[in-house]
Each structure stands twice: as structure tokens, then as C-alpha cells.
């Protein structure tokens, strides 16, 4: 696996010198294992912020970051599947709101906790599967199909609530968003961990995961291999709807209400998390766990810059810059791997 040390040569260093070797090793780590690289960035951020503020690197603040990252991280599970399949899901923020209001309305009507939770997930699955029908059977480009669904799901949330938030929820619903296990570990954090564990299992051990990657890598080859591609696209987008629905429940539980106008812009945050995690927008390549790390990086920047008292608008600038850097690294990675451009 002898490849030229691009960075080293670019800087005019001798690849055999200590600095050259270090750079070469770093370069290989980035290429061979993007997840390790993304985790390294997160640790570096934490290290820097802990030097800048005594309030940052505490157990409670780090847990707080995982809670702040939870909703985007949950959405990013399905988004990662969609992006791996070379698609994009712009409707997840609106689906989140649709799920949140459906679930809280069911609870408001007195049907109880279980019915409320199931209703929220079913609504997410329904809108997601509809995306899959549009992309798989009607051959609508994912960008357009999910942009349309973004309007439909948002309209649905506003219509059924007449634009008014739902504040009455069932007893015990607050645990999902606000609970703590043993008084310390936040329930949303555990929920995120659980969903990622399931997601990794599906991605690596099931046909759905295998075909998600192969569709993103070469849809035509997948089709001629006898795979029912449209059916799997329904499952992939359906999964994204389900994880957006679960995120909707978590958000509604955290704030104690179903907001028909909630979740605006979350689609972009979830895409940012996936891309910062190193999953390629060109499909077929990426890591699910790294999307969680991506969501943590975004939450860390928001949290850390808050702790430092940095003007909030600068956070947008920082997150935007990281996103562009992540895509640049992806380009460079594919170039080095000798993959297709």
C-alpha cells in the first residue's frame, strides 16, 4: 500500500525525517480511518476549550453536550443511511415536527404514553416511506422529492394543530428527554447510544445495510444483481423518517410540548453532522458512528463558544467553516484512495 506522502511532499519535507513520518502517519490515519480522525478533532476541540475555560471540561458539561447533540444525532442515523445511498433527506426537520405534534396530540386526547410514542414513530415512518416511493418508483431526484416532503410534512403539522403548540403530554413522557439514569447519565444520551448500536448492526449485518452502500456505490450494478432497488429505497428513506420521528419524540419530551413550527433547519444540521463525520456525499462511503461524533462536534462548538461568551453569530461561522473543511477532506481522501472523481 505504498502511496506518495502528498502532504509531506507538498511541504517539501523528507518523508523519512521525523516530521515527515509523523505527517505521513497522520495522513494514513485520516485516509484509512475517517472515524478516528473525526474523533481526534472532537478531542482536540475539547482539549482547547478546557484550556480556555474552567467550566468546560466537567462531567456535567460534557453530558450536557451529549444532550444538546442528541436530537441532531438521532436524525443523523437515518440521514447517514440516505447519504450512503447517494441521496439526501431535506424533510427530516419537518418530519420531526409532524411526529412531535402527532404524538403529543394523541397524548393530549388521553390515549396515553404508549399510543403517543407509537403514533409519533408511525407518522415518521409514513412520511419517510413516501419519500422512498417518490425516489424509488417515481424516479424523482432525492433533493426534490424530500424538498417537496418538507413542505407536506410541515403543512401537515401546522394543519392538524392549527398552528398552536400542544402542551398537554402523558405522565412519564418527560423521561425520554429529561430523565437521568442514576441521577447522572441523561436518558437522551442513552437513547442515542442505543439507536446508533442498532444502526451499526443494520448497516453491517443486514441486507438493508449492504444494499444501502451498494445502491450508493453503483445503483445500476445493484439493480442488475437482482436487488429490488426501489423497495430498498423505501426502507432507507422510511428508516430516515423513523429516526426523525424518534428525534421528534425526544425533542417534544425535552421541551414538554409538541411544536408544529419546531425542527426548522435541523435537516441542514443533520447533513452537516453526517458530512463532518466523513460520510461522502457521493455515496457508498462513510461511517455511522462518525455522524454522532459530527453532531457532538457541532454541539461542542455551540456549547464551548457559549461558555466562552463568544457572540452567538460567530458560532454559525465556525460550524460553516468546519463543514466546508470536512467536504474538502472528503475530496482529498477520495483523490488519495484513487477512487473515481
Amino acid at each position, binding site marked *: 500500500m505504498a502511496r506518495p506522502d502528498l502532504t509531506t511532499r507538498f511541504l517539501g519535507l523528507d518523508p523519512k525525517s521525523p516530521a515527515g513520518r509523523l505527517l505521513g502517519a497522520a495522513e494514513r490515519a485520516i485516509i484509512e480511518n475517517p472515524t478516528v480522525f473525526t474523533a481526534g478533532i472532537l478531542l482536540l476541540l475539547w482539549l482547547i476549550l478546557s484550556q480556555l475555560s474552567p467550566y468546560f471540561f466537567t462531567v456535567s458539561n460534557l453530558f450536557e453536550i451529549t444532550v444538546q447533540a442528541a436530537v441532531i444525532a438521532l436524525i443523523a442515523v437515518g440521514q447517514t443511511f440516505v447519504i450512503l445511498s447517494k441521496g439526501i433527506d431535506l424533510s427530516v426537520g419537518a418530519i420531526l415536527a409532524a411526529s412531535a405534534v402527532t404524538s403529543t396530540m394523541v397524548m393530549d386526547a388521553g390515549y396515553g404514553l404508549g399510543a403517543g410514542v407509537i403514533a409519533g414513530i408511525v407518522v415518521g415512518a409514513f412520511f419517510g416511506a413516501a419519500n422512498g416511493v417518490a425516489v424509488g418508483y417515481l424516479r424523482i431526484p432525492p433533493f426534490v422529492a424530500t424538498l417537496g416532503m418538507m413542505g407536506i410534512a410541515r403543512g401537515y403539522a401546522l394543519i392538524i394543530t392549527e398552528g398552536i403548540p400542544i402542551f398537554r403530554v402523558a405522565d412519564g413522557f418527560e423521561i425520554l428527554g429529561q430523565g437521568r439514569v442514576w441521577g447522572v447519565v441523561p436518558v437522551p444520551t442513552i437513547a442515542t447510544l442505543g439507536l446508533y448500536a442498532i444502526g451499526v448492526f443494520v448497516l*453491517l*449485518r*443486514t*441486507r438493508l445495510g*449492504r444494499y444501502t*452502500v*451498494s445502491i*450508493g*456505490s*453503483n445503483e*445500476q*450494478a*445493484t*439493480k*442488475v*444483481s*437482482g*436487488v*429490488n432497488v426501489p423497495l430498498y429505497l423505501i426502507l432507507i428513506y422510511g428508516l430516515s423518517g423513523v429516526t426523525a420521528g424518534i428525534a421528534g419524540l425526544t425533542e417534544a419530551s425535552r421541551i414538554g410540548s409538541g411544536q408544529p413550527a419546531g425542527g426548522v433547519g435541523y435537516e441542514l444540521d443533520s447533513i452537516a453532522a453526517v458530512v463532518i463525520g466523513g460520510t461522502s456525499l457521493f455515496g*457508498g*462511503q462513510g461511517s455511522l458512528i462518525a455522524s454522532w461524533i459530527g453532531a457532538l462536534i457541532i454541539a461542542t462548538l455551540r456549547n464551548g463558544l457559549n461558555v466562552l461568551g463568544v457572540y452567538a453569530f460567530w458560532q454559525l461561522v465556525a460550524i460553516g467553516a468546519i463543514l466546508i473543511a470536512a467536504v474538502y477532506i472528503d475530496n482529498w481522501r477520495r483523490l488519495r*484512495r*484513487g*477512487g*473515481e472523481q
Partner: protein
Amino acid sequence: MSAPPLIEMRNIYKSFGGTHAVEDVSVTVQGGEVLGVVGHNGAGKSTLIKILAGAYRMDSGEIYMQGEKVSIHNPRDARDLGIETLYQDLALADHLDAVANLFLGREIMTRWATLDGNAMEKATREVIARINPNFVNLREPVQRLSGGQRQSVAIGRALYFDTKVLIMDEPTAALGHRETAVFKELVIRLKSEGIGMVLISHDIHDVFDLSDRITVMTNGRQIGTHRTAEVTKDQVLSMIILGKQPGEETAEDIATLH
């Protein structure tokens, strides 16, 4: 009459918009036989075999397998009949490894309905060892493999699954000299196993080396089919370029071919 042919395509038509890609073409393939299909660019060769592979649906025509009429509506139907295809562009998922590609669409599952990675890797090792013993990095994404290794994966599919008919569209186009020689040996071995093959190639020498019969197409039409032993390369070239039957060509025609 002897046994019916392994595959018979009868009066096949297919057009795309106004383009008549395949017009009234009929071919047969016997078990253990290689049928060469030749013709210039856009003659309709790929379209013809894609119909057999289930990638395109014909407008009209009939397909028989061992004398029985079959309907092939999608790639899965073709595979279920034992028809495998080596596509011109090899049709591999670049980011997946050789094991995943070999089993794509037909994964071995554990009894828990999960992918059985170990069983698939073991099977892939066995089948690849028969084709290309030097190819051992089966866990590398196939985009990092050589043309010959990629082709080994595609052929591996044909060998592993119970294949009766193997369709090969430009199988040597991406290969080097040595790899082409290995490929030719492999075709001869598959013939001896009774597999019927359809070979599309622009390389007239490959076609003469490997096929038992040759059919020539131009602009979607079939000029004719001949036993390889009964025609010369010049005659076949003349059929491709001038659309003339063997014996019709003049010395002058032959001269223009060279």
C-alpha cells in the same frame, strides 16, 4: 432433431424512441458452445444480450430455454434461470469488497437473518482461487483492484452460482495481455463444464479463438450466423463493414478492409 438448444432467442425486436436497436434477431446457444456476436459500435449487441439478462424488456420476440418458453422481465428472472452476465462496465459496487460484490443480491444469511460474512468470505476464497490464485486481497474495496482482479470477481459470480448460460460483453476490453490469456483458458474450462456462452467482442482474433459460431449485426439487423470453422476473418470483417454474405465479397472489397 437433436436436443433443443440451451437458449434460443427468436425474432427479437427492441427500439428506443425512434432507434431500432434490435430488429428481428434470432440466435441459439448450445450447452458447451460459445456464440460470438460481432458488429460495429451501436449495432445492437449489448441491447440484445441485455434482453437475455433481463436488464431490458424486449418489444416483441420469444426466448426458449431447453425448448421451454421462458419470460425474463428483470435481472432476477434471468439469474433464477441460471443466466449470468459479465457487463461491459463490469457492474461492480466500487466501495464494496470482492466478497460483498460476488454475493451481491444473493447473500448467504445466518439463521438469525443476518449477513454471514465468514461463510461468504470462505466461499469467495475458494472460487477466486480457481480463477486467479494471485488474487488474495478480497477485503479491499474493489475500486482499488486491477482490471483483471475486478473481472475475477465478476466471473466468480458466474462460477459460484449454478450457471447455465454466461453472457460476456467485451470481457477482455479492460484486460492486459497476460490477463486475457488467463481469461481465454477460463472460457475453455467453462465450455468443458457444459456452460453455454455468448461472447461480444470487438477483437476479431478473440472471437475466432473462442467461439464456435459467429453472428454478425449491423444497425440492429442480423447479417448472418456462421460456423467459425467455415469462415475467414476477412469474410467476417466484410460482413461487419459491408454487410455482405461470405462469398459475395470481391477481391476489391477485401483490399478495402486492409
